[in-house]
């Protein structure tokens, strides 16, 4: 009896651990658009009756596209199944479908950081044959895209995606507090430290001098990279290996942990984009450096208690001779799957969804400050909604660094290793230099094993 029980327990354990290992990831499949198609038939609808599936990132642009989708379905007769998932689940979902070569999604929207991996593995289609095909490129207007965004979608001059939205990073500060405490807007990291210190001291610790993201992984890396470039460091050297063991990188990480540990909010080591944004919106911090889209949240009375009190400035830099700009340039685009069975219909959808008419409409539907169309940026609704930070945002995009995050197929792993190093230094587990050395070794092992 005992023996049988023992084997029973063994089997139970074995199966459950294996099953557990598979990961119980919540399937966050969002709404699926069902449009009323039909309408008139005729020779102007050569793709009528075709059906395509699109995987979109949870973002204001995607929500807007979902709302105006019936217009596209009516115009072309193509049925579009939209699936919207959060950014953090997007890439693994896309990759699992890509790697099974199932053609489950005709179009996938993602960050260019992951786009390099897609292109490298041969999952996505080069778009040049579509942009030049006069019978299906009516919605495509190359000159209307922000040039930096469009260039970011190209690898070796071949275009692989259409930019959906883009953003950069800038410094957000509380104008009222700066005036009260007599602080001038920092342009170097030393001034940033002094400003954080002044706020912290004069408010007797009530208001954090600065808040930044500390959560390990892409979260802290996305903001820390500003300091890496600003102190004169870089991700990759000429040999294509990582350059994080440099004194500049160590200085950047040391600064990051010092300013947060001395003048940052409690719990910053677990702050992602959301926590960081909320703390600043609630008026509990005087400064933050983050994505330009945060401007739209700061100025939204439904979201924020500091509307009109926020000043926007380019991110500070320290080095006179940086190897690249300290503000990011992030572009998220739509990619066309190689396994798609209706590539022409899919292309029609992606060129329609990124065209200026739709982007202009999207701004009145959702707080979408990241439009990728120049015409949308000159539209009056762009000015009225995002006027408070528009100029600084455009300047940041203009100077945005496309290499802000490493643009290589293995970028995700490099970012994860670095994120752990930042977290270790932030918690005081390791010195900045040691933590970065560790990440650097891991990265180089990865990059040299080709």
């Amino acid at each position: 009896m005992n023996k049988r029980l023992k084997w029973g327990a063994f089997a139970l354990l074995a199966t459950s651990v294996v099953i557990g290992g598979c990961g119980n990831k919540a399937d966050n499949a969002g709404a699926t658009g069902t449009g009323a198609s039909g309408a008139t038939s005729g020779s102007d609808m050569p793709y009528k009756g075709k059906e395509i599936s699109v995987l979109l990132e949870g973002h204001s642009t995607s929500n807007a596209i979902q709302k105006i989708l019936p217009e596209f379905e009516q115009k072309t007769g193509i049925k579009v199944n939209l699936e919207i998932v959060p950014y953090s689940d997007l890439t693994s979902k896309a990759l699992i479908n890509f790697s099974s070569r199932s053609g489950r999604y005709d179009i996938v929207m993602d960050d260019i950081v992951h786009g390099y991996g897609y292109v490298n593995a041969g999952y996505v289609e080069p778009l040049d044959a579509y942009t030049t095909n006069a019978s299906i490129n009516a919605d495509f207007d190359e000159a209307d895209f922000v040039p930096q965004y469009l260039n970011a979608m190209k690898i070796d001059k071949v275009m692989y995606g259409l930019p959906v939205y883009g953003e950069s990073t800038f410094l957000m500060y509380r104008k009222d507090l700066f005036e009260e405490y007599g602080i001038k807007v920092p342009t170097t990291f030393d001034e940033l430290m002094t400003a954080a210190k002044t706020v912290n001291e004069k408010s007797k610790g009530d208001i954090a001098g600065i808040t930044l993201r500390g959560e390990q992984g892409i979260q802290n890396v996305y903001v820390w990279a500003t300091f890496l470039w600003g102190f004169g460091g870089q991700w990759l050297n000429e040999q294509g290996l990582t350059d994080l063991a440099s004194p500049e990188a160590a200085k950047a990480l040391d600064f990051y942990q010092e300013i947060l540990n001395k003048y940052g909010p409690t719990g910053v080591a677990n702050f992602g984009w959301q926590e960081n944004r909320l703390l600043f919106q609630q008026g509990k911090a005087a400064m933050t450096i983050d994505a330009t889209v945060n401007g739209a949240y700061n100025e939204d009375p439904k979201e924020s208690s500091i509307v009109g009190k926020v000043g926007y400035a380019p991110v500070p830099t320290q080095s006179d001779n940086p190897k690249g700009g300290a503000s990011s340039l992030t572009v998220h685009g739509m990619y066309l799957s190689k396994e798609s069975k209706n590539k022409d219909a899919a292309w029609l959808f992606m060129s329609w969804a990124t065209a200026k008419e739709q982007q202009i409409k999207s701004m009145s539907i959702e707080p979408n400050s990241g439009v990728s169309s120049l015409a949308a940026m000159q539209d009056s609704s762009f000015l009225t909604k995002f006027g408070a930070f528009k100029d600084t945002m455009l300047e940041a995009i203009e100077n945005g660094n496309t290499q802000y995050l490493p643009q290589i197929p293995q970028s995700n792993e490099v970012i994860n290793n670095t994120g752990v190093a930042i977290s270790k230094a932030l918690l005081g587990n390791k010195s900045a230099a040691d933590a970065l050395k560790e990440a650097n070794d891991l990265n180089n092992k990865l990059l040299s094993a080709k």
Partner: protein
Amino acid sequence: MIRQLRNRANYWVMPVLLILGIMSVVVMGYSIYMAVRDINLVKSVTSFVGFDNFVALFHDSRAWASLWRTLVFSVSATGIELLFGLGLALFLNRQFVGRKLVRTLLLIPMIMTPVVSGLIWRVFYDPNAGIINYYMGVLGMGSKHNWLGSMDLAMISVIIADVWQWTPFVFLILAAGLDAMPNEPLEAAEVDGASPIQRFIHVVLPLLAPSLMIAFLLRIIDSVKTFDIIYVMTRGGPSLATETTNMYAYIQGFNNFNISYATVINLTITVIITFIFTTVYSKLSGSKARR
């Protein structure tokens, strides 16, 4: 006659066994296939690498540290849950007004989806706007506790959330055990003049041992594979403080896309954990048999 019936019953069990068997063989076989290759989803080619992944894992200090954290998490969470669950079951094992209501209310955490309870606890733990720090401040115990953002508290905070969610489950099993317990031995002990403590140690506990064992096994298996609440609350951070093996395998598989390496981590961990627990289990049940 009975033997015939039993044989006939076997035919009814066969299809299920067959399906389960095929499924586990296929899944296991495919896992082993992945384990000896170097599949990474952002690479277009893969090749056979033999035991390279296992060798790499052997030298991977992050994996071993995560295994240690898995043990710390599982053993302490399960231990506390058993203790609290037993206390609750004994305390509520009597007649009082509202007994049913109290029992029902106790089960609410267990019914909740772990992702949801993780999110709730994440909000509770928020160091600047969370309810826990607020009330601790009101009670004069300081309002600046860095629950999820510090090395020393992050693991404890996650364990607290797990205990909150799963103590009711232990309570449920033990309460059922207490309900099913015969009254005669207790009465006999009482007649013989045993004190309440003696009665608890010498009568109630031995009779409850099978229930305790089931609760222990189910909980320890479950907590070894805990993923959701850690994923939601800390993502394994800060500074890897809450990175259990499952979390690490997730990061390798779904953030770094090293599918093969993630498989190797899970396979190895499965073997190790199974070995440890079967040893523990046979020790525990062996000592019981001797007595």
